[in-house]
């Protein structure tokens, strides 16, 4: 990385100046010389087992595998010759010695790397007459199907499982010609990310929730952004006839920040889109205590507008609250804000967010890290949070930074999270005392007190400070929702007070929970007078009506079950009937992420496109369209002409960080655009905040037990939510990521995907 020295390499008679030490296979490919390969996978340990990438290098005996050769000065390389082609054809013939030749029944047919390779390097006939190895098909888990005889032993799956996920759940067993990819006892005991499915070049590992339902060439593909967490993975939605069939991140279809990585939610939790329980029409409850009755859009909009007007006239504009959601697009939240301010004129608007990043944004003195920065960081400080379960892409980048990049990782957490296996230092603090660490970082004076409150040795804090001091390269500061407003502020100011050195740079990586937590803050929806719980507390009192887009969080409703009933009028836009819609007077069916155009802003500050893959199901409409219709009915035409692009243009004009952004500039997912956040300078009032933080830490009891148990893999990932609950496989996993009673037989091993798990009877929409 650091050796920028360039050397001369001659490839097929042409000279190139390239970086010394770069993998030859990459250099050849970048310069337009195609090299076939199976086992090579960028940024994974080298395998060199497929022998497809052979080249001739002068002065070296025999053909060489270009994936393991690094460029040195004066290297003369030939990538194409009769000799090389013969060797490659030989390799393909060997691969086919055991591989069945029944592509028409294989689910990978049409996007199989082996199939493509055979078109170019395969022979016309098979010379092997020996019996092929035979293994029966099986399921490694409810979502991973396995057909071992198709394996070509490239071991991408095992490396991805180990290096990306740190799971080591799938490995190669047996030896020689009988080597086979598998797991102990046949059960895949892991977070079920399905990345092994994604990277498998053949049909060995397959998506059991999708296979044999359609063919890849029948799918319409749309590049979009994941709707589950704040990492904002880029994915390719495959749809057929208005139904979302699958989600993949194969690099032939999409090339985003996540490469081919997705987590279980991104890859498998999409069936909610076409689920039969989706709300079909607008619903109106004409009188309190009555039933929700299906209505036409015209009727529902007219009814709602009239009611809102009535309440505004009777109790004033501030009696109406507007609640957006960090799950919705920037467009939806922006239009909601505009509706609140311009149409209603209320100061009561907010979003149903788990915690606010406002103090951080107001005081940040260093830029945001992108996921690429994290991968190449030299020091990573993770305060609170649990990225492996809540922001899986971040966790993967952190793990690779440590394992493949030699970064130092410090984890400050009250839970011994799994990621601590990778940590250079783990500060195991008492629950709720993460603030104390921030206080300690801000100055030496409070070390002893902070250590006492956190329940760690004083000596454990100094090495952390030294590590940050001595870093040559990027220091990434990550933090979760555990930090208080004051701690967020102080942390945000920290880089400013420590100051950059020539070879050291600070970067921030907050870990909010939702796909558009950043965006909902950026458009300003979080700036209202009250937050979500505040609005609920005022319900029935100063707040008479609520307009909620995307449900409220269970955490908000906990202990406030009565609040919604106290309202005079509740309007909800939702995908499904929820606890919130149960009390609604009007319910609008909203369109899901697969049915709309828009943008999400991820935790890198990257503004990424959401693209429409299928038409809205039933009578659903995009959230911002519903809001515009309401505005229109209340006499103000937003004049977006049904175009999300027009909404975004307006965001580009009004939101400072998004200045000048337009959809065409966000076209290419491989070159994502980062919002331009204003860096704050050193703030004088910070001294006060620091004093407050000190008081806060002083008030901590410094007693209480630590959490000693590392949580199960998937304890957050497999949680049943409104959306994930629509996937049968999640229920199986949530029942305890079932491990076999004895290691050899898994209870799920017997569950075939046919017995009630197939989606086809549950399809809604046509």
């Amino acid at each position, binding site marked *: 990385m650091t050796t920028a020295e360039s050397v001369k390499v001659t490839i097929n008679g042409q000279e190139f100046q390239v970086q010394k030490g770069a993998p030859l296979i990459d250099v050849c490919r970048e310069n337009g010389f195609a090299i076939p390969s199976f086992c090579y996978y960028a940024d994974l340990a080298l395998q060199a087992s497929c022998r497809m990438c052979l080249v001739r290098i002068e002065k070296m005996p025999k053909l060489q595998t270009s994936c393991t050769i690094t460029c040195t000065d004066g290297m003369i390389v030939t990538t194409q010759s009769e000799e090389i082609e013969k060797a490659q054809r030989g390799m393909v013939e060997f691969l086919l010695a055991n591989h069945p030749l029944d592509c028409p029944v294989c689910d990978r047919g049409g996007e199989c790397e082996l199939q493509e390779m055979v078109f170019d390097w395969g022979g016309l006939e098979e010379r092997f007459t020996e019996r092929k190895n035979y293994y029966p098909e099986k399921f490694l888990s409810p979502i991973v199907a396995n057909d071992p005889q198709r394996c070509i032993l490239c071991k991408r799956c095992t490396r991805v499982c180990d290096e990306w996920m740190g*799971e*080591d*759940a*799938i*490995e*190669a*067993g*047996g*030896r*020689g010609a009988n080597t086979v990819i*598998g*797991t*102990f*006892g046949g059960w895949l*005991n892991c977070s079920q990310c399905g990345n092994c499915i994604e990277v498998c070049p053949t049909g060995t590992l397959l998506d059991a929730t999708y296979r044999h339902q359609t063919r890849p060439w029948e799918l319409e593909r749309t590049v979009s952004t994941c709707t589950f967490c704040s990492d904002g993975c880029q994915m390719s939605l495959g749809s057929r006839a208005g139904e979302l069939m699958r989600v993949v991140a194969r690099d032939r279809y999409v090339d985003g920040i996540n490469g081919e990585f997705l987590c279980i939610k991104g890859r498998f939790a999409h069936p909610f889109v076409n689920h039969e329980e989706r709300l079909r029409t607008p619903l109106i409850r004409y009188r309190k205590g009555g039933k929700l009755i299906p209505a036409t859009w015209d009727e529902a909009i007219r009814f709602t507008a009239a009611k809102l007007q009535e309440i505004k006239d009777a109790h004033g504009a501030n009696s109406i609250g507007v609640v957006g959601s960090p799950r919705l697009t920037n467009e939806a939240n922006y239009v909601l804000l505009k509706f609140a301010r311009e149409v209603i004129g209320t100061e009561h608007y907010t979003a149903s*967010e*788990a*915690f*606010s990043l406002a*103090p951080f944004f107001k005081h940040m003195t260093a830029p945001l890290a992108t996921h690429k920065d994290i991968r190449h960081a030299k020091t990573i400080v993770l305060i609170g949070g649990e990225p492996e379960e809540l922001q899986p892409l971040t966790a993967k980048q952190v793990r690779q930074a440590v394992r493949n990049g030699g970064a130092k990782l410090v984890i400050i957490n009250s839970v011994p999270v799994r990621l601590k296996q990778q940590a250079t230092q783990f500060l195991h603090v008492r629950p709720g005392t993460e603030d104390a660490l921030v206080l300690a970082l801000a100055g030496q004076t409070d070390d002893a007190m902070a250590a006492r409150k956190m329940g760690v040795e004083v000596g454990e804090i100094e090495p952390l400070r030294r590590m940050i001091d001595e870093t040559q390269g990027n220091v990434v500061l990550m933090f979760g*929702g*555990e*930090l*208080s*407003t004051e701690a*967020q502020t102080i942390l945000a100011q920290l880089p400013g007070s420590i100051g950059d050195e020539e070879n050291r740079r600070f970067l921030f990586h907050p870990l909010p*929970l939702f796909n558009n937590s950043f965006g909902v803050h950026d458009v300003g929806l979080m700036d209202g007078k009250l*937050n*979500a*719980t505040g609005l609920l507390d005022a319900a029935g009192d100063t707040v008479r009506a609520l307009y909620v887009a995307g449900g409220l*969080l*269970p*955490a908000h409703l*906990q202990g406030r079950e009565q609040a919604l009933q106290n309202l005079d009028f509740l309007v909800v836009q939702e995908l499904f009937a929820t606890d919130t819609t149960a009390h609604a007077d009007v319910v609008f069916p909203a369109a899901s992420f697969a049915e709309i155009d828009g943008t999400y802003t991820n935790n890198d500050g990257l503004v990424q496109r959401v693209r429409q893959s299928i038409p809205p199901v039933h009578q659903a409409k995009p959230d911002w369209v519903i809001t515009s219709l309401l505005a229109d009915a209340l006499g103000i035409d937003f004049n977006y002409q049904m175009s999300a692009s027009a909404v975004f243009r307006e965001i580009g004009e009004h939101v400072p960080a998004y200045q000048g952004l337009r959809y065409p500039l966000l076209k290419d997912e491989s070159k994502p655009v980062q919002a331009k956040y204003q860096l704050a300078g050193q703030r004088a009032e910070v001294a006060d905040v620091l004093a407050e933080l000190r008081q806060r830490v002083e008030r901590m009891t410094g007693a209480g037990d630590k959490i000693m148990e590392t*949580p*199960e893999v998937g*304890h*957050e990932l*497999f*949680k*049943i939510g409104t959306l994930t609950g629509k996937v049968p496989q999640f229920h199986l996993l*949530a*029942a*305890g*990521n*079932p*491990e*076999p*009673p*004895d*290691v*050899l037989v898994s209870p799920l091993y017997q569950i075939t995907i046919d017995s009630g798990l197939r989606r086809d009877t549950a399809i809604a929409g046509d």
Partner: protein
Amino acid sequence: MSQQFTPNNPLPQEAKVPVEMAVFSLDVEAEIDRHLAKYPVKRSAILPLMFIVQRERGGYLDPPGVAYLADRLDVRITDIWEVATFYSMINTEPVGTYHIQVCRTLSCKILGAGKITEQCSTRLGIKPGETTPDGKFSLSEVECLGSCGTAPMLQIGFDFHENLTAEKLDKILDTCERGEYVFTVKG
């Protein structure tokens, strides 16, 4: 103050079935500790430990044995599986009292290993990879055992039987059948 996110669903852990872990006598534990002490990295001791566990758990790595190994060596059960299936000396399924392992690699093959296996097969009524119903014999074909100079050869437990002929093999199997076979090398 910022709101705290409190997860409202209980952790779905109760449903997990815990794997019972093998327990060994103090002597065995001491033996294991001796091996572990030899390596700077714990998991390097995987092979010696596997032999011990296999010996103690009735000749193969049963699930509690595997759970024990994974725990002791700090590796995943899949890592254990990977190593265990690579070596023919490690069994992942129960084997008979007399585990007949016929070498099938080049030297032995040329000098008639095929016939040796066949003779075992017909006499015992099992194919390679199988165990007789009475649990007395298991038959397997293994790779070179480093005794090529005395091919063809087979191994029972860890005992070598070299320069095999049909008569010799019959005699060996006879002693086994009568229960008079004495293991010379202890596993």
